[in-house]
């Protein structure tokens, strides 16, 4: 009876700019049911992400059955979130939530190739909940820290995912450092604006 529980995948913190660049996906084994990872350009694998942002638009884009698309905006860009009949809780959250509102989403990265050959990246949510501005701000700072940690570890010896990122993407790391700065400055301004003169 005592089987050891499978290790749960950590939810990576990643800004929209980097998430949407992560078009390369891979598996660690040949097993059909092996988990799919997206390769983050800052050199990390992501099987799960945690994002917090502003839900700005929701739309049922399904043809036969409900298929909800949400746009979730962070200081650097937009996450696309899709939930259908296999994510009933997330789909009903997208159906019911007002826009704009702050949402926290735990989900899996998905990449698919369109007919013209470009790869689109989206989030398949496990859960969507409405949160406060404080949670959003905390996420921005946390995601900034995690992103900087990945950038710092990028040149480390034996950083396997950084090696793969170098091979798969032709993207300068400065792009993500700038996104971090942009996000934090944006936070700073919001805070100043909220404070009474």
């Amino acid at each position, binding site marked *: 009876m*005592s089987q*050891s*529980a499978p290790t*749960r*995948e*950590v*939810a*990576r*913190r990643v800004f929209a700019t980097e998430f949407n660049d992560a078009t390369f996906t891979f598996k660690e084994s040949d097993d059909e049911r092996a988990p799919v990872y997206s390769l983050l350009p800052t050199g990390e694998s992501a099987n*799960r992400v*945690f994002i*917090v942002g502003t839900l700005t638009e929701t739309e049922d884009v399904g043809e036969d059955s409900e298929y909800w698309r949400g746009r979730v905006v962070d200081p650097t860009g937009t996450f696309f979130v899709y939930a259908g009949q296999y994510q009933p*809780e997330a789909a009903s959250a997208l159906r019911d939530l007002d826009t704009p509102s702050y*949402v*926290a*989403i*735990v989900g899996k990265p998905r990449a698919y190739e369109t007919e013209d050959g470009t790869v689109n990246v989206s989030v398949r949510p*496990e*859960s969507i*909940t409405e*949160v406060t*501005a*404080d*949670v959003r*701000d*905390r*996420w*921005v*700072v*946390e*995601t*900034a*820290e*995690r992103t*900087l940690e990945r*950038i*710092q570890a990028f040149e480390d010896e034996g950083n396997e995912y950084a090696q793969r990122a170098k091979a798969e993407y032709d993207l300068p790391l400065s792009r993500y*450092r700038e996104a*971090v*700065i942009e996000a*934090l*400055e944006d*936070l*700073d301004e919001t*805070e100043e604006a909220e404070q009474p003169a």
Partner: protein
Amino acid sequence: MSDIQQAAQELHEQFSDHLDITVDDVEARLDTLVSEYKVPLDEARRSVESHYLEEAGIERDDIGRGGNDTVHVEDVDEPEQWVDITAKVVDLWDPRSDSVAQVGLLGDPTGTIKFTKWAKSDLPELEEGKVYRFGNVVTDEYQGRYSVKLNSTTSIEELDEDIEVGDNAETVEGALVDIQSGSGLIKRCPEEDCTRVLQNGRCSEHGEVDGEFDLRIKGVLDDGNDVHETIFNAESTEELTGIGLEEAKQMAKDALDTTVVADEMREGVLGRYYRVSGPTLGRYVLANDIEELSAPSDAEAVLIKARSM
């Protein structure tokens, strides 16, 4: 050394405390089976082992495998390991069953762990507050919680020293990214000393029973680098979610469905950041203290770091 000699030596080690036998005796028995009767070695080994078990009048589970690791309490993270451990008897509880001679808590600087001493093992009485070196105890696991069992092969040596016992308390923080199944309004087995959570009205030990309601959350805190599984008991679940047992029962009654409770809880807490501290039980942190984390305070420092890179 041949395979037979190797096996003979290992078997001899297992039984040397119980039987007056030599390695040669064991080897001769193995050799007869393998060379004369063409029995494969592992089968021969099993057969010889059974023979000696019978001769010594002990159970297969009671013998060690020889060459144990000496471990600390916090290192016990796998069931059915034979280990040696030096620890203090922190607490003795009343045994619930006649088959148990003593049961309680052992502690060392890394934490505490439950121990069970079987009546049939016929071991010396342990005293609370004393430190012992236990040789050849076997680890066990129940619902992510580890324990050690003393058995008839266990050696117990009282040491003249004291140990500062750690409390395994841990503080973890992160976003609450999941509330796992088995959370919310649950039913536990009402049998005395059985608190197992019922699955479809059945206890895995006592079968179909009339369960007693309880509240619990098995949650996952994730900080982007690590995941920490935490358990909130009824009290801390109410503190976390604002939903108490009576309210939860009413919600379930109104909806004719107990799962509405966990759903409502998910809506209220998923995606928020918490800091939780309490003792650890296996891979779980028991949430005794809960703090919701609000707006960040270190944005400026992170910004300076980003600009300086």
